[in-house]
């Protein structure tokens, strides 16, 4: 075990994956010598050479297309998109190509092993072009897996599982936690299975569900709720696609209440999918409406970021409202 921040854990995962498997290759804008603008790929070029860790020209559609091609050949590209806000030029390559590669060819070809890593989310005074949380756009795309870790330990295990996966993965990294989140991380190789949510804290009155950087916000909110005598069950979804319906259903059958929190705007966000599924599966057990605490339906703001975000106070209020319904 070693104390690592999230960037170190990610860097360590990439290092282990590259050491273990010579077909793992990392690339993206500024990813090579410089180690990426956040330094997630630091020292990898030094260690594994320019062929396996390199800068690309400034073209996200090119990066994604290149990654698709490499993966189709059987290698394991780990491509970085510098900010999740800039993943949209690659949308066609990801949604029409990556996601459908195996299906359309009848399994003659596939891009399993391909991972897109990208920092997402707000909290860094980045405005609407350095703060977006676009997971819902990808979660509507059969063929992809979509993963969001909440801390260094999770980041390493989930990233290693993503690289090992036979399916392509979009791996969203909560950039505001890159240096802020630290913890004990095993130095050796380990995987955390994809598609499985984690019940982080058991409780009986209400289930609180989130992922990524919103977990710590929910932790604050449930502490406030605890002080009021409300017992919350906290679930980290971890995998947005596929998502672990059974774990959430089991929890809501017990608590009868669900509060979902995400950074992205409310309308069309992934909380809608979860709420729709859970109201259907738990209909007779729900004691209050499923609540969603999300970003507003606007681009992510700058000056009024505090007002905009799905913070602990809004989450706390939703928990109380749910219990008092």
């Amino acid at each position: 075990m070693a104390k690592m921040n999230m960037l170190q854990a990610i860097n360590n995962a990439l290092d282990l994956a590259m050491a273990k498997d010579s077909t793992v290759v990392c690339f993206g804008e500024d990813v090579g010598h410089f180690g990426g603008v956040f330094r997630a790929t630091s020292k990898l070029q030094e260690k594994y050479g320019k062929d396996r860790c390199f800068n690309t020209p400034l073209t996200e559609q090119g990066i994604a297309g290149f990654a698709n091609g490499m993966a189709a050949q059987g290698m394991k590209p780990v491509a970085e998109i510098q900010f999740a806000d800039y993943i949209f030029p690659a949308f066609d390559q990801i949604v029409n190509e990556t996601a459908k590669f195996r299906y359309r060819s009848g399994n003659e070809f596939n891009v399993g092993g391909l991972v897109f890593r990208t920092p997402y989310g707000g909290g860094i005074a980045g405005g609407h072009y350095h703060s977006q949380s676009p997971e819902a756009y990808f979660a509507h795309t059969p063929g992809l897996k979509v993963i969001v870790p909440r801390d260094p330990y999770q980041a390493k295990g989930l990233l290693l599982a993503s690289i090992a996966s036979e399916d392509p993965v979009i791996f969203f990294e909560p950039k505001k936690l890159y240096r802020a989140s630290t913890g004990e991380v095993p130095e050796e190789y380990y995987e955390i299975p994809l598609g499985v949510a984690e019940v982080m804290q058991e409780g009986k009155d209400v289930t609180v569900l989130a992922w990524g950087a919103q977990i710590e916000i929910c932790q604050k909110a449930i502490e406030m709720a605890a002080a009021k005598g409300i017992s919350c069950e906290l679930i980290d979804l971890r995998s947005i696609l596929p998502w672990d319906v059974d774990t959430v259903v089991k929890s809501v059958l017990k608590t009868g209440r669900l509060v979902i929190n995400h950074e992205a705007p409310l309308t069309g966000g992934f909380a809608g999918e979860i709420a729709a599924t859970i109201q259907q599966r738990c209909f007779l057990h729900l004691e209050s409406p499923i609540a969603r605490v999300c970003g507003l339906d606007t681009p992510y703001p700058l000056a009024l970021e505090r007002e905009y975000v799905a913070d602990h106070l809004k989450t706390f209020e939703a928990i109380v409202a749910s219990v008092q319904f």
Partner: protein
Amino acid sequence: MTNPNNATISTVHTADFTSGHALQIPTLRILQDDGTIYPGATAPDLDQETALKMYHSMSFIRVLDERMLAAQRQGRISFYMQCLGEEAATVGSAAALDDKDMIMAQYREQGALRYRGFSLEQFMNQLFSNEKDLGKGRQMPVHYGSKDIYYMTISSPLGTQIPQAAGYAYAQKLRGLSNVTICYFGEGAASEGDFHAGLNMAAVHKAPVLFFCRNNGYAISTPANEQFKGDGIACRGVGYGMKAIRMDGADILAVYQATKMARDHAIATNEPVLLESIAYRLGAHSSSDDPSGYRSKEEEEQWRKNDPISRYRLWLIAKGWLDDAADKAQIEALRGEILDALKVAEKVAKPGIEHLISDVYAEPIPELERQLAELKQHIRKYPDAYPITSGRM
């Protein structure tokens, strides 16, 4: 002074534009319409077996296209795309490759596919989306693909294969394979952003790709002069620091020669090459299209004379490698074989219900299992509404 800008550092003191047509690229032609070689040209070094395989691939595709377009008109298949007029471009280039060079095609490259050995049955199974289709009946007709013969399954979105080819070839290089990737695309698809990304990345990362543009004058109804203002596509090579060459796409010897040279260069240096085939899309864009709405019969007639097969045929006959009568008989026989294969393929069952959810992921995720179970229950309730699958559940 260092030159971090990566640009020429010669100086002028008088402002002058570089013309948008400063670079003109000639067209390589070797074989004349009458089957003789142009004065001053030399035919590439082809052995008889290869030369005949090239010919038979072209004539097979010509007959298949004819038949299957007719089958589409009869309502037996839903859609079809011919390559009339461009057979030499794809067969000639495929013949210059190694069998393990990856082919990434657009959709009008059945010539290359046939040259690689895709069987008549395989064509038919794909066209009828039956359960023997390697693609499991999931894509529209002509979206062929086969791992065994290194032919990437076609994808309808245009241009996407271009940066993919760069990545594929880069992986070939990293693995130490002595193989290239060839990437075919139309002059229309060359307008997509993916074209720019793919060519630039291949040049920067030294990926051994042959970018093969089939400039056939039209993208559906849009003529090339409403597609770009430069001199064809080949001139874009300088923008990427990439060697380029243009050939008459109806001249199989020129195409073969240029592709061979490009492949040698790519293998030797890992540098990509841009090739441009100049030909004419003689048929409609697809079975859904009618070109009479956007071009003249005269233009078509003029180009029809430029037939890639007939001149090559004359060359082969003159060389004594092909017998006129025997060949005609063989083509006649082929018509029958195709019809027989069609009749077989159209009776083969469609893929089973499990293939509605297979291959979305390596293993179906739980939600897909749930959806399939629910669907099966529904089909059992209404078997008549789902005749393709209900009988076999």
